[in-house]
């Protein structure tokens, strides 16, 4: 039985439908990321689960019990604000012991639990400090400790790394995940950072405009995106607009602007259909010779960018389309130079074909 389950949940604010018929279940002990652009409804979803909002339609279950009308304090789900909302008038000890005291445990148990949890997040020494005296990372640990001490089984994390600087963020990701796993907690973690989601979660739910686009493991989401939006939001890709001109038993042929043709393995589309073909940057290779069994196009290097361990090239095709290719930087190879003419190759099997979106391609991939 899933620990948290949402069935057809809808939430409106006046005319805005923030969440539209959401179905989602989270297993006990799972680390789920909800990934989506700003305004997608991520915060709203978390607040519904926490009990800070009530759904307009649909049901929410925790541990099999319908909790639509159950107040937040009876859900064992602790909501963590982006800035952690440590009570400013209490010190670390006061914050962490808040849950146990409120729940009227006996004094010994309160002390034991509080000091144990504080040790766990390595903050036993700072128990008398006030929140404003702590660094961002420490504040986050206090907030986690506070949630754990309150006996919560579900952590609801709203952009937990949003308030931290980039380097710290990466370090803390793994820390957070191992803490959650060690304590056998269930985490629902909201973020708009695809890299963060891919790195920490067991499963990712892509949320967009109040609807869930796709749910799956990070690998599934990356390798088998179900929509143009997902592929562009997670990882990004090159998009070719075109029309299916032929379908045979090896695949289909797509005709692009300016008469260019490419082959894809996908055979599910009909001749004459308008489609979008997506190819990831790292699946596009650049060379001096044509590769057998690949699509080979001619292009000119317009720009060269150094991105950490790899090079990213911006290339202009014969039909004036621009595309990007990313190649790992190896010791021996010399990077290509601007103005060079190259052959661009990609395998038909790496091409993903989508129906042409009704509102246009640009609108679809805009991270709204």
């Amino acid at each position, binding site marked *: 039985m899933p620990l948290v389950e949402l069935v057809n949940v809808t939430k409106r604010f006046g005319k805005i439908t923030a969440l539209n018929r959401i179905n989602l279940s989270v297993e006990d002990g799972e680390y789920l990321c909800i990934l989506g652009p700003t305004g997608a409804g991520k915060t709203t979803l978390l607040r519904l689960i926490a009990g800070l909002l009530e759904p307009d339609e649909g049901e929410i279950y925790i541990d099999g019990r319908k909790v639509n009308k159950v*107040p937040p304090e009876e859900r064992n789900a*602790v909501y*963590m604000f982006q800035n952690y909302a440590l009570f400013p008038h209490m010190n670390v000890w006061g914050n962490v012991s808040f849950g146990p005291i409120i729940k009227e445990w006996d004094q010994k148990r309160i002390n034991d639990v509080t000091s144990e949890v504080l040790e766990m997040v390595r903050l036993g020494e700072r128990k008398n400090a006030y929140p404003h005296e702590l660094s961002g990372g420490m504040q986050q640990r206090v907030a986690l400790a506070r949630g754990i001490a309150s006996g919560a089984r579900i952590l609801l994390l709203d952009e937990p790394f949003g308030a931290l600087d980039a380097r710290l963020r990466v370090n803390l990701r793994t820390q957070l995940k191992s803490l959650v796993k060690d304590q056998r907690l269930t985490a629902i973690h909201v973020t708009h950072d695809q890299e963060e989601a891919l790195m920490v979660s067991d499963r990712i739910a892509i949320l967009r405009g109040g609807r869930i686009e796709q749910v799956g493991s990070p690998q599934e989401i990356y390798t088998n995106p179900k929509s143009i939006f997902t592929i562009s939001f997670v990882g990004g890709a090159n998009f070719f607009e075109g029309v299916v001109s032929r379908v045979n038993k090896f695949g289909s042929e797509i005709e692009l602007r300016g008469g260019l043709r490419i082959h894809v393995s996908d055979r599910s589309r009909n001749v004459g259909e308008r489609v979008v073909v997506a190819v990831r940057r790292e699946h596009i290779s650049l060379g001096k010779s044509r590769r057998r069994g690949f699509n080979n196009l001619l292009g000119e290097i317009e720009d060269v960018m150094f991105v950490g361990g790899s090079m990213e090239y911006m290339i202009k095709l014969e039909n004036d389309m621009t595309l990007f290719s990313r190649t790992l930087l190896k010791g021996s190879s010399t990077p290509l130079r601007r103005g060079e003419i190259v052959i661009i190759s990609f395998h038909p099997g790496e091409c993903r074909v989508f129906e042409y979106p009704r509102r246009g391609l640009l609108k679809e991939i805009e991270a709204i």
Partner: protein
Amino acid sequence: MAWKIIGINLSGIVISCTLIAFLIFVVLPSFYLISYIFLRWDEVWYEVFANPITGDENWRQIIMILLFSFKLSLSAVAFDLVFGVPLAYVLARKKFPGKNLLEDLVTLPLVIPTSGFGFATLITWTSSSGLSRLFGSTRLLSMNTAIPLINVPFILFIVHVALTFPYLVRTVETKIQSIEETYEIASRTLGASSLTTFRKVLLPLSIPGIFSGSVLAFARSLGETGATIIVSGVSTTASIAIVRWASEFKLSTAAFMGSLLVLIAWIMILPVEIYVSKNRRSSWRHLHIPTNLSMKIIKFERFLSRKLSIVKDIVPLIIVVILIIIPVVVVISSVTLYWSADPYTGRVEGGVVYQLFGPSRYLDLILRATLTSVIVASISTYIATCISIPLSFIIERRRYGHVLRTMLKVPLIIPTSSLGLSVLLLWGASGLCLVNSGIWMIILTHIVFSVPVIVESIIAAYEGSGVQMYEETARTLGANAYSAIEAVSLPLIKGGIFTGFILSFTHSLGETGATLIVMGRDTTIPVLVVNMVEALAIPAALFTSTYLIVLSLVMLVIIRILTQG
């Protein structure tokens, strides 16, 4: 589950009790005043429009007095705007030594009892122990020296400016502080001079604040009673007329004038509330200035920005000194001057000591009045606090909260004498007949304006400290609605509650206009000052004013410490 059922009922009970208390104590009086006019229209008609002897003399007087009041208030607000907006900008944006002190000085007239302040200004400008000491003549001005053009007595004008100045400055200052400085920085780095930046960026954004500040200042001036009654001389303003008519038992005429003022207050506050709540950026967009003219203005502003930046900083400061500090200093120094005898005639009867301890025994009166004032201020502030705390939560949490908040603005801007009159009519012999004039009715009156003062202070603390977020966190950590409020929200807004309490206490100590009408035979300190001035017991009045001013200065210091800690 059980506590939940109780809990729901409990919150229902708390909310309804609070709302009922709020409606009865705060809102009902001013509504009653207006309905009084309709209920007793015959009487009003007879007294105001169709008196067998004087005809519509009263009506013609009402019109004249209203026109005079409007002229006075409009000119005071115009003056406030010209000098208050730059001062607000300086206070909001600049850091300089003594800034806190300047802020306190500007706020002083909000805290100082108005009758004491009025008396101080009067002494400063018209008596031989005031400013004329510096210039060597016996008196600088007469009480009725008028300002040319607008034909408003000078003393009356400067008292109204001093008393309304803080409302405008503080409102605009708060508004400017809420505007991010990045816009100005952007404008400056794009090449606009400071003056151009002010006109094109800051001013349009702070229009709502300037609007509501002006309305507040105008309303204060229209309703000012305590100082006006002392400095008005032969002129009569609307609020003074109400006091006079009420004391002459011309209740219908007073009620008619009072409800006119209440209506004016409503008519002013509603559009501004709607305008401000819509939060429109600027309605100046359609004001189109031709490009070449606009270029000239910008050039001129660049020139002025360089030349005038000091003037802009200094002039408001001088005004603050002249209008506020000098009177306070003069009154305090006069007490020492008059301590043992009248310095000019040398008569002991004209000294402070003689008047306090001599046969007229003013000391006894002062002590009695102090007792009354402290009892009134304590009880009314306590009751008002009890209503205000739950009321603030309701305002913040419920969808109808903003309606309540707008209703709360009314007691703040209706003339205090109208307020006193409405309480008198509602609770007194001609209304519900529950309370007689005297200390209990003073308390009822002071509750009316104390609730808005405390609520505003609590709400400021509430919104400033992100209470909602902390409370929600507490809920998800296992606290129910009540323990979350107890353990998290109340401690977070504690400062706001204390500040509101002290503000309201101070306000109550200094209130004159409403108290004059409802006091019966009990006397508070500010009213005593008015009585002493009327009895021409100047040394005693000097002493009592000083006493009052010092008392409220102590309060101001307490507020400072509280809001900084």
